[in-house]
């Protein structure tokens, strides 16, 4: 694999191999020496133009546990703030002999743009409102573990409801694309104001009525209400949002016993998810976090383990 820019880059064999290896990588966390030599001598630069403690740290740990040298570049206080263009910044770092960039950027398509410039391999760690493929992979990993625990393997026929701010979420698109590969059936639930244009081309059902899908969902994934982006008047009040689209204790009670609850974090308790749901026995929120390092180890291994993905 040359880059991981989008979940559309993955075929079933590769996606499955990544999930399978993540299972092995999770075991490494319980070893006395949490280190594998697979990426010895590789250099990975995590360059984050947006803050993200969770994603950046898990990529850094993942790289280190595979024995790569990982370097964090925060765009704040760097040459970027001195007015250097993205292209010049990336080409400068690329010229230092970096093997891979893990990039988070506020503009959709930034990772793909960077990949077209540099010799290094590129992992998209979130680009604007576009994609966040490793998040979708760790979601799928968590769901798969949950399905297995419920004695019902595989994604085929599973109903995955993704609820909330579809418009600003990069997690949604990656999840939709990944489930098209894995075979799960995604239902998108949101108020009309938070549905992105062109959603009809995504090939999944879209509804404004959470109560119509809650009883048959195998997974409900609650998206964060991004308060910082809510100045646009997408819904009247938070309370009204919660009433229609929150995972309230009442809706929690309607879920199937075997259903799992996901949230990419950070959660707004009492808004999109009630504390009862966040802390429920079938809440997978902490499993998602725990899967983060393992999935990123697996992705880095698939990119850098062999020379076949390197620039010729």
């Amino acid at each position, binding site marked *: *694999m040359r880059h991981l820019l989008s979940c559309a880059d993955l075929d079933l064999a590769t996606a499955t*191999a990544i999930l*399978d*290896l993540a299972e*092995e990588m999770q*075991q490494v966390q319980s*070893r*006395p*020496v949490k*280190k*594998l*030599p*697979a990426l010895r001598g590789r250099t990975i630069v995590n360059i984050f133009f947006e803050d993200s403690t969770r994603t950046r740290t898990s990529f850094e740990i993942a790289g280190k546990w*595979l024995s790569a040298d990982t370097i964090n570049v925060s765009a704040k206080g760097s040459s970027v703030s001195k007015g250097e263009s993205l292209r010049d910044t990336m080409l400068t770092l690329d010229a230092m002999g970096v093997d891979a960039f893990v990039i988070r950027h506020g503009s959709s398509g930034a990772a793909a743009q960077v990949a077209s410039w540099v010799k290094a391999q590129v992992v998209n760690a979130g680009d604007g409102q576009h994609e966040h493929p490793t998040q979708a992979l760790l979601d799928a990993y968590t769901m798969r573990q949950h399905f297995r625990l419920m004695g019902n393997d595989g994604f085929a026929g599973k109903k995955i409801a993704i609820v909330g701010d579809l418009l600003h979420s990069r997690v949604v698109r990656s999840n939709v694309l990944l489930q098209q590969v894995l075979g799960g059936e995604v239902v998108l639930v949101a108020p009309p104001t938070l549905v992105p244009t062109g959603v009809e081309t995504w090939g999944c059902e879209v509804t404004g009525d959470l109560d119509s899908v809650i009883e048959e969902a195998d997974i409900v994934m609650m998206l964060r209400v991004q308060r910082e982006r809510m100045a646009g008047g997408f819904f009247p009040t938070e309370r009204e949002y919660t009433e229609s689209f929150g995972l309230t204790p009442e809706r929690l009670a309607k879920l199937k016993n075997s259903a799992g609850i996901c949230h990419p974090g950070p959660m707004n308790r009492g808004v999109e998810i009630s504390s009862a749901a966040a802390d429920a026995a079938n809440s997978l929120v902490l499993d998602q976090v725990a899967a983060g390092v393992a999935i990123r180890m697996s992705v880095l*291994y*698939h990119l850098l*383990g*062999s*020379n*076949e*993905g390197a620039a010729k």
Partner: protein
Amino acid sequence: MADSATNTPTSQVSRVVADDSEVARVLTRMAHQILEANHGAENLVLLGIPTRGVQLAKRLAALIESIEQHPVRQGELDITMYRDDLRANPTRNPARTSIPGSIDNSTVVLVDDVLFSARTIGAAFDALRDLGRPKAVRLAVLVDRGHHELPVAADHVGRTIHTAADERVAVLVTELDGRDAITITRTAQLGGQA
């Protein structure tokens, strides 16, 4: 070598060196040798190296248990990420590693099907170092075919087979291949027509 476009008459000449009953005898002898060297089954951990070493380790563990009436710890040690040729090859999907408890102060017997370049075993030593500190590490292989590239010798050898470098020695196990056998395959050119 498979040149199907021009249909060059090459053929895979394969012969069976040991059949299922012979493999069973060899494994039984190896189980006894492992017990003898360890003075019993105490503190023994058998680690099979995927793919077929895992099946062989399971067989040996079962044999040792039936001989000694004493349970033996047995697991799997994947060495993919420790290979020295990892980068040069297309991405390999690592297999499972499962270690039955701590290996500290135990006697680890690495089990593999064929000892050839010995690079797998070299990688296995590195992998073990990350997992703990055994009292001793021994090596059991069903076939030692020579051509070692590292200073490694097996402690318990099922069969020593003198081979040419272009021959291929395969160990078949019932669980994966439908039968137990050791075979040697040589790709021979038939005739010289262009």
